[in-house]
């Protein structure tokens, strides 16, 4: 009898959802920081900060994606 990935036990889901939310919140904070700090940074440093923060969030998303994939494979093994 086969099962879908969702039907298999999945204790990781809430944790990964929390990680996703954390990434979004962290990203929002990083993306708004140059506009909140005083004195304001110049446009060049602000741009550099935003590109760096963007790269960080992309890496975090890649790690989240990897963790989700590993969880899905484990569930497939269960199924």
């Amino acid at each position: 009898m086969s099962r879908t990935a969702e039907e298999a036990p999945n204790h990781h889901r809430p944790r990964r959802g929390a990680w996703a939310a954390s990434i979004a919140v962290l990203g929002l904070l990083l993306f708004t920081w140059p506009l909140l700090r005083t004195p304001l940074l110049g446009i060049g440093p602000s741009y550099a900060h935003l590109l760096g923060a963007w790269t960080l969030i992309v890496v975090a998303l890649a790690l989240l994606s990897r963790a989700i994939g590993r969880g899905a494979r484990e569930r497939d093994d269960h199924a």
Partner: protein
Amino acid sequence: MRDLAIAAVVVTAYAALLVGAAEWAERREARQRSVAANRWVYSLALGVYATTWTFYGSVGFAARNGLLFLTVYLGPTLCAAGWWWIVRKLVRMKNAHRVTSLPDVLALRYGKSQTVALLATGILVVGLIPYIALQLKTMIVTLGLVANGNRFAYPASGRQLGPPLIAFLLLFTIAFGLRRIRPTERHPGMMFALAIESVVKLVAFVAAGAFVVWGLFDGPADVFRSAAVPSVSAPALLGSHGMGTWLAHLLLSGLAVLLLPRQFHVAVVENAEEDHVRTAMWFFPAYLLVINVFVLPVALGALALRGSGNAADTFVLSLPLEAGVPLLSWLVFLGGFSAGTGMVVVETTALATMLSHHVVIPAADTFRPLGALRRHVRAIRWVAAAALLLAAFAYERGFGEGYDLASIGLISFAAVLQLAPALLGGLFWTGASRTGALAGMGAGFGMWVYTLVVPVLARTGWMPASLLTEGPFGIGALAPEGLFDLHADPVSHAVLWTLIVNVGAFVIGSLLSPSRRPEQARADRLLDLLAHAPAEAVPATSVQRSLGAKRAQTVALFETYHSHDEAVVLTDASLAAIGGGSGEDLRTLEVAAFEAEVERNLAGSIGAAAAHAAVRRAGLVSHEEARAISVAYGELLAGLHLSPEELLRKLDYHRERERLLARDAADQQFLAGVSSLLASSLELDATARNAVRLPVPHLATAALLVLRESGAPRTWFCHVDPERERAGREALEGKPLQEPGSVARALRTGRVATCQPADPAWPAAIRDADLLEVTLPLAGVGEPLGTLTLLAPAESRLASPEGLALSEELGRRLAIAIDNARLYASAEAAIQARDDFLAIASHELKTPLTPLRLQIQTLERLVRRGELDALPPEKLSKLVGGADGQIVRIIGLIDKLLDLTRIRAKRFRLDVGPMDLAATVRAVIEQHAAQIRDAGCQVTVEASTPILGSWDRLRVEQVVANLVTNAAKYAPGSRVAVRVEGDAGCARLEVHDEGPGIPTAAQQRLFQPFERVRTSEASGLGLGLFIVRQIVEAHGGQVTLKSEPGHGTSFVVELPRQTPARA
């Protein structure tokens, strides 16, 4: 270069290349060797989000508003974190119900309502026309620039270049997206072409950026330095905008990336496998990051070179053109062209499909004169595509000149935002109702028109300009761009007010007018997509329906929208899906299932809502059949003695039960595999190697098997990551394992030991800080065999009760297998020992027989010759004494064998009586003085005082004789010290020799039967020490051995003065 003909040739060649690639991808798909159903193609195709607005408009936007352009890409990056949950849910909906657009999803969610689908389609079409117009404007402008900047100046160039461009885009759209109608609505060729276009525009933009930064300036620092001089009108951080605008744009873009029809089409409709979403959720933001790296440097560089931001939207192309770099100019043009065509093709395809599904088909179904249109779905889509492109062109002609690219794009984003509450609310809130969705979308769209469209009309003279300053009827608080005196930039203002009224109306409408029962049931089923799939078995009833008639009726229904051949294929597919079609009749409830399947297949062609209406209208299920179905379900309920509510509860119960049974079946399958694998070998090493791999990765990330053995424990390690496994093995081989507390606990208690984090005593290469450790004792016959340690994430199945139970069962089976392997090894060793014994016993028994026979033959010869009397008495005595000595030796061997037999048969008895151990020792040494002397040993005895006790004299003599003769046998030529002493309760005998000693590994083995230290050097059965131990233990004492190679050997016998009664 600046020649329209060359531009036409370049564009045509590029388009031909894309069409060729798309055709190749389609053929590969047909041969089941898809290149489009690929996670990277999927992720790249999502790059259709980067339109000419990104390619050209972002630079213009940055030149005017600084970093604000980034919100259009940072918003989607933030929202991508939730894609795995949202997009995957939509993909499952698409797979289950063959939805083809966002209005389809909304219609499906809200009771298959055509009104919901129609309103959503209207919002998207009206909202997206400006966005398509934006692409047309850019393509016209850039085509004019590369063809001949002076002859084709915008906006006049639009009259010449617009019509052929529209025709070209229409053909492109039909070729890629609207060539055929297929239920799945997937277009592998289009996806592959989009992926290529994404690569082209990325390469082109990065090349243009690099050219500006390093070709026209000396790097990024030089660009920023040049733009900072007072003569350059460089923008402020966010232009004239503030934090509110930044946040509003982030929200707007984050939601639009899924709601835009082209994005929904690529992300959901074209998705071939839901796991691709996982890759896209990081690759797509990465793509956006790379394509935006040079936007600000290009904008600032152009401002520094020109001093002003005029025509900033075309900086990317005009800079290489003016610098006279033709190759780069053409590459940039093709990049922008890719961005524009990709967007127009997919957006137009999606909108045309929506228009045919939710406007034309329902109209044709409703108004009889339009009925013939139903047979021409493909043509309807083509006409719809043409109408959309013409409308966009008209918009571009009417309003394009007065607005920059970003402004037009953001207006469209705000329009599609109006679908967000209904979509997200519908996906995650079971209380959302059709009324709420209609109210929310309607109110939001109305507010969008008022706050964003009315100002455009007022500024272009279509409405009074005073409306913007004085408000309607002179009420300033109602001014479209300053409602209730809240003033912000137009887009942020519109986002705020549209969301307030939209969400408010949606929630209030849903609460005041909740879903009716059938709509709610459908919504529940839809929202349950991530849970267990319902069983599809159709219960049998006795009422039969004619299959032939039903089939003909269905073919006719499909023929309304398809050709005859396609209709037959779809009908047969629907019958096959319910397992019917082989007999002549359909059972009553099969009719209901068949109707649902037909509706599903039709939805792929005309949309869910229209399909629902068409199937109802076709009367596929007659009133009589509907009644029969109702009666059948009623009978089922009555037979079950259940109310509908109870039935639902029982369904939930049985669904859960089925899930548990399925899980248990999978577990049993796993355990059966375990048993089979473990039974495949009786060799301990092979069993252990197999055993440690069994739980990985089914139950654990890593597993470690520890087996107790004399000396250090043996370990086997397995990890899901081969590198970690190698490191773990090296760590275990590097130094002896210090038994962790968890292992000791499991061995001591015989129960599972769990701890988190894993015990720190494990080598660092094995444990992870956040891993849960479960150590299972492996109980064999007698002592525990060892432990199996499982390491898994704390949230894994291992932490659950059923996971623990499964692992315990695994441990039990593993223990049996290892025990069997050990017992098998013991049996093998016993057989080997028996064979060795037979060989030794034969040899030992034969050894004295040979001289005995020679001596008897000598006597016989003397007697036969009559020489016996002549033999000197001393020689005769020696001859007879020698024979007697051999006989005594044989008797000694046989006595040992008899002792062994008695010990094994538990018939070993002692004849206890008072005796002096010191005297006995001296007597025994005296008896064996000759043997000791022959061996060259010097014996010293310390037994000055009598050591009295109650023992079996003969057996004690046997013990002393064994130990002393062993010393003489194995330590010839050395000194042997015998010491007898005692205290109040115990007597102690120590025999020490200065021989070569006994290796540590052999010391315990020596007390086993048939074991000898060095089998080649001395004779004997290997029973002496075994019998010594049995005799001593029968007296309630113990015998111990101390020896080190090169430092001699000591045997110490301790005997209680009073032998216990049981002896």
